[in-house]
Structures are given as C-alpha cells and as structure tokens.
C-alpha cells in the first residue's frame, strides 16, 4: 500500500482538509495519518476517527494497512 494511495483516499474523503501520511516503519503497512478538517467540528473523537477509518475501509479490510494511527484536528 503506497502512501500516495492512502493520501488520495483521505483527500477524497476530506476534500477541504489537510492530510499528512507517514510510513512509521518503512515497511509500507504501518501508517500514521493526520487529518485536519472542518468536517470534524462538533464531532467526538470517536466520530472523527470513524470517518477516517471509513475512508480507509478497503485497505484496512484487505490487510494492506496492518497498523493505523490516527490524529484528527478540527479547524475552521
């Protein structure tokens, strides 16, 4: 799973957001994604992370993301 694929999926899900993806281990399957988006305003952390998980549902389900860390930031 290339970083670029994850970035594309996130940018599609959060069109006005700011997306950062880091390959934590260099092994192409442990990622830390950071998403800043106005979509998160007023949502609980669980709901925010649910949106990120949903955007990456396919690579999570097929195992191409083995581990995912998520940081979400609300913004205006």
């Amino acid at each position, binding site marked *: 799973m290339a970083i670029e694929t994850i970035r594309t999926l996130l940018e599609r899900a959060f069109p006005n957001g700011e997306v950062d993806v880091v390959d934590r281990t260099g092994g192409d399957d442990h990622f830390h994604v950071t998403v800043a988006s106005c979509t998160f305003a007023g949502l609980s*952390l*669980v709901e925010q*992370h*649910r949106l990120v*998980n949903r955007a990456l*549902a396919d690579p*999570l*389900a097929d195992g191409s993301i083995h*581990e*995912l*860390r*998520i*940081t979400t930031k609300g913004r205006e």
Partner: protein
Amino acid sequence: MTLRDQIKNVIDDEPVAIFIKGTPERPACGNSMRALQALRNAGAPITAVDILPDPQIRQELTALSDWPTIPQVFVKGELLGGADITEELFASGELARKLDDALGEEREQVVKTVSVAATTT
C-alpha cells in the same frame, strides 16, 4: 450463547472493557499496551478480552462496534475508541473525568481477564 452475544455482554456489563491482542500482563501488540497503560494511569478498572485465540472474536467485535482496529475500549457499553483516542483523552485529563462521571471517583482499580469462545455444536 452466540459469540456475538458473549462479546456484547462483556461490553454492556463491564465498567471498562478492552479488547486486546494478548493479556494485560503480556500484551502482544504495542497498541494494546498503549491503551492499557493509559487506562491504568487514569485509574480505570480493566476487564480485558484477548482476541487472539480465535479470529472470529475480532470479526464479531468489529461487526458490533463498526471499528476496524484493535484495541477497542468501551466505557459503560459505549465505544471510547482505540489506542490513539485513549492516549489522547488520558493526556488531556478527559479520560479521568469521563471515568469519574461514569463510575464515580472512588472506583476499585481491578484488572481482570475474561474469555469468550464460540460454542461448538
């Protein structure tokens, strides 16, 4: 009782339920360890379920919670989140506040492990 019902009972009945890889004594994954550590530091009672013995446990859990990754932490039946959220809420002090609200300030900090298993017919 079906496996899903057993999982649901743990989530609903235990004050703080955590589904992890391994056990609280020997977590088998760094993320399970991070979430456990945050719960311990916040003074939470912990009821842990190891998902590793049977892949079906994770399948049924995720079907119930609509949450794809492990660990998963529940407080009084409600999904708190995974390792990142649990750590973040601990760091901000909100985890302790949530636990105070849900369980009272004088809670007993017991750590126990329960197991769930598919019944064979």
